[in-house]
């Protein structure tokens, strides 16, 4: 089945144990030069462990890693890089307090003590421009960039190292479809030179469009490697979970255009980032916010959660105009708006603290809510099937999907009238996604108004009742019913006229 007889990396009987836990179990796996190889699996299936072994971050307990046919011991990321194995991890490896320029220079080939190579920078800048990051200022501090921009910088940095095998571990999770396409266009051009790409993604359409071969992992075992297109979605999902998931998304109920209005934004604006936005949130409806990254959709959530100063226009809740000056205001029982932020590691959770402490942090100090009572959180822990050893376990020990469940539970315990979600399924495995979708639908049915910002347009099509697409701070299209199609969404995100969808 191999398309090329020369694997760059071949793993033979690789096992990795952490104490009693087996993260990888006797895995045989190879990745060829010039191919884009997708790795699929639920969180905890062993994908990240596999990547870390190839990148030299950890060493296998048993088994051999072959690079270019020779058995090697990759004792550190530096050794892996020197053999052309470059990895981008989901925990971004850039330094927040340095500028974009400095980050691009850091550790690049040809730079060493006291010597910075201008050529490397030119190459990196050029790469950045080719993946739609030309607008990112070189002198900006990395911490001031959006998550998507940081990922673009990270990709440019990795590509500039002229890797032989590029490992992308959820590295495109915050990027929009069009940027991801550009990234892979660049990679395809490079792969003509014999570069292999190994990537983890949870977005099926991305994998379908880009991968040559697909490997599925489950519970630390390599299930199967096959050519892209050999199986359809449901068959692949079944391989991943080992049991049947009928459908990724819950059934969508009848549209309710006349449902009671919970919250209305009227001519909402903020500085240059948001102009004249009017959105109506109805009881029981899931409203989507889409668009390319940084077109103002995130500002809507921030504005509704009291994070923006001096907003224009009105916020009308249950018929009365309200002011929301801070998150503390937003969570007041008479307003009751909750936000699950985009970056769960830095914004949503205190990783060093226990699951219990994290869940209680929002409820603590709210009148009439018994924050320390575990019963308050139980229904959501159960509905989301949170996997944990003990509620005293630090949240940082949980997998990404389980962390997101904690972040959701923390706010759902307050039973918010209006729930704001910033890309809640980013970098999360399929099973957790279905659990989250199901819960969101159930909450909507119970009367919660949900505003869902997403970078995955399938969520607009299959989950949302209506969707607003943003461009340059404005809503350029309001899609409802049959109009919510992949073509229309893509056209709108690029601010092209309707029906002009020419997406391949």
């Amino acid at each position, binding site marked *: 089945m191999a398309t090329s007889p020369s694997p760059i990396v071949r793993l033979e009987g690789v096992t990795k144990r952490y104490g009693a836990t087996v993260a990888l179990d006797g895995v045989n796996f190879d990745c060829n030069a010039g191919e884009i190889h997708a790795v699929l699996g639920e969180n905890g299936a062993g994908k990240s462990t596999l990547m870390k072994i190839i990148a030299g971050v950890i060493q296998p307990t048993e088994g051999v890693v072959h690079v270019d046919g020779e058995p090697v011991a990759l004792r550190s990321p530096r050794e892996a890089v020197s053999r052309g194995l470059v990895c981008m991890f989901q925990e971004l490896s850039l330094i927040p307090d340095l500028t974009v320029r400095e980050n691009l220079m850091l550790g690049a080939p040809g730079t060493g003590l006291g010597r910075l190579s201008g050529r490397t920078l030119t190459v990196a800048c050029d790469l950045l421009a080719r993946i739609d990051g030309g607008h990112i200022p070189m002198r900006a501090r990395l911490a001031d960039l959006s998550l998507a921009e940081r990922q673009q910088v990270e990709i440019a940095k990795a590509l500039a190292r002229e890797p032989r095998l590029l490992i992308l571990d959820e590295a495109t999770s915050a990027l929009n479809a069009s940027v991801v396409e550009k990234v892979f266009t660049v990679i395809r051009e490079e792969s003509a030179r014999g570069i292999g790409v190994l990537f983890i993604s949870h977005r099926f359409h991305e994998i379908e469009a880009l991968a040559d071969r697909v490997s599925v992992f489950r519970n630390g075992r390599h299930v199967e490697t096959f050519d892209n297109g050999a199986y359809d979605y449901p068959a692949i999902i079944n391989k991943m979970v080992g049991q049947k998931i009928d459908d990724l998304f819950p059934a969508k109920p009848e549209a309710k255009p006349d449902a009671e209005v919970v919250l209305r934004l009227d001519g909402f604006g903020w500085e240059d980032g948001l102009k004249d936005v009017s959105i109506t949130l109805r009881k029981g409806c899931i409203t989507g916010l889409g668009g390319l990254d940084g077109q103002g959709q995130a500002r809507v959530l921030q504005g509704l959660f009291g994070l923006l100063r001096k907003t224009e226009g009105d916020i009308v809740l249950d018929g009365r105009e309200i002011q929301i000056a801070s998150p503390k205001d937003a969570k007041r029982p008479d307003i009751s708006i909750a936000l699950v932020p985009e970056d769960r590691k830095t914004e949503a959770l205190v990783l060093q603290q226990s699951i219990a402490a994290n869940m209680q*942090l929002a409820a603590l100090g709210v009148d009439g809510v018994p924050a320390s009572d575990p019963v308050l959180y139980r229904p959501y822990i159960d509905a989301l099937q949170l996997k944990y050893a003990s509620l005293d376990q630090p949240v940082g020990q949980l997998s990404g999907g389980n962390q997101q469940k904690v972040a959701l539970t923390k706010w759902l315990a307050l039973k918010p009238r209006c729930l704001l979600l910033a890309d809640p399924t980013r970098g999360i495995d399929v099973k957790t996604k279905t659990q989250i979708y199901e819960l969101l639908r159930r909450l909507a049915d119970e009367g919660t108004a949900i505003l869902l910002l997403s970078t995955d347009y399938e969520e607009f099509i299959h989950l949302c009742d209506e969707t607003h697409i943003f461009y340059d701070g404005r809503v350029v299209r309001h899609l409802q019913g049959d109009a919510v199609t992949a073509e229309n969404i893509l056209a709108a995100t690029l601010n092209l006229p309707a029906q002009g969808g020419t997406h391949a």
Partner: protein
Amino acid sequence: MSLAIARRLDLTTLLPFAATVLLILGGSLFFPQMLGIGYLSQQLQIAAFLGVIAMGATIVILLGHIDLSVPWVLGGAALISTTLAGTGDPLLTALAIPAALAFGGLIGLINAVGVALLRIPSMVWTLAVNSMLLGISVLYTGGFNPKGEASATMNWLATGKLAGIPVAFLLWMAVAVGLALMLHRTGFGRYLSAIGYNEKATFLSGVSTPSVLFAAFSIAGLCSALGGVLLAGYANQAYQSMGDPYLLPTIAAVVIGGTSILGGKGGLLGTVGGVFFITLLNSILSVMQMSDAWRSIIFGVLIITMLMVQTLRGREG
């Protein structure tokens, strides 16, 4: 899992207490009088001065901040209280302690303005506040030791005894228990360590983080001021730079008590142990007639050792 964590926390907290006991036992081999009631009671009294200040410092360090204005809040409070008591006017004498505490609280609020609202690193801002307080007090006293004396109440608080136990120690314990209740019974303690670990996530959980910073820095100011009142009562006067020897030991006591200098992890109980340890170590070194120079070096080494232990433990966890 929870058991393991609890055990480790207890160990960190109990460590300074165990070290203190070892110090006493070890010291008593050379100086048998160390096991006498008189000596130990005197140590409790001396420990109380540092202890009161370290309680406030613990709260600020839990936040991931630091209060370097301790020396001159202490000095200023001593100056204010002795000046008022020194007038001999009964009303002003009665006001001595409240005025000193109000001063401490006010400086705490000023510290919080810089840190919480202007977002200036606390290390710089509180150092600047300390320097300004120094300047103001020199302007006021002309650089000489001020006149004035402690009130009878101040003397009693610092040197009196109740049922054979030093009043200063009882006062320290009262402050510690009061703060501990505040930390555990309300959300305040939870907010402190959540902010210490991740201020952004705490703010986005709908916590008014500036209010928490304001409360924490005012408590620290009040504690430093109370320390100043006690010291003035002990020495029966205020003098220039009386707070200077207290800054480093305060931080050392907090760090030895297991509170992370980066914020988040730690608590008051550990600091109580840290204060005992520092006080006894100081006392033993002075009994051994170790010079000030060597004592400073030893404290510096102690702080660095504790920070290294914390870093290594953090890496392993």
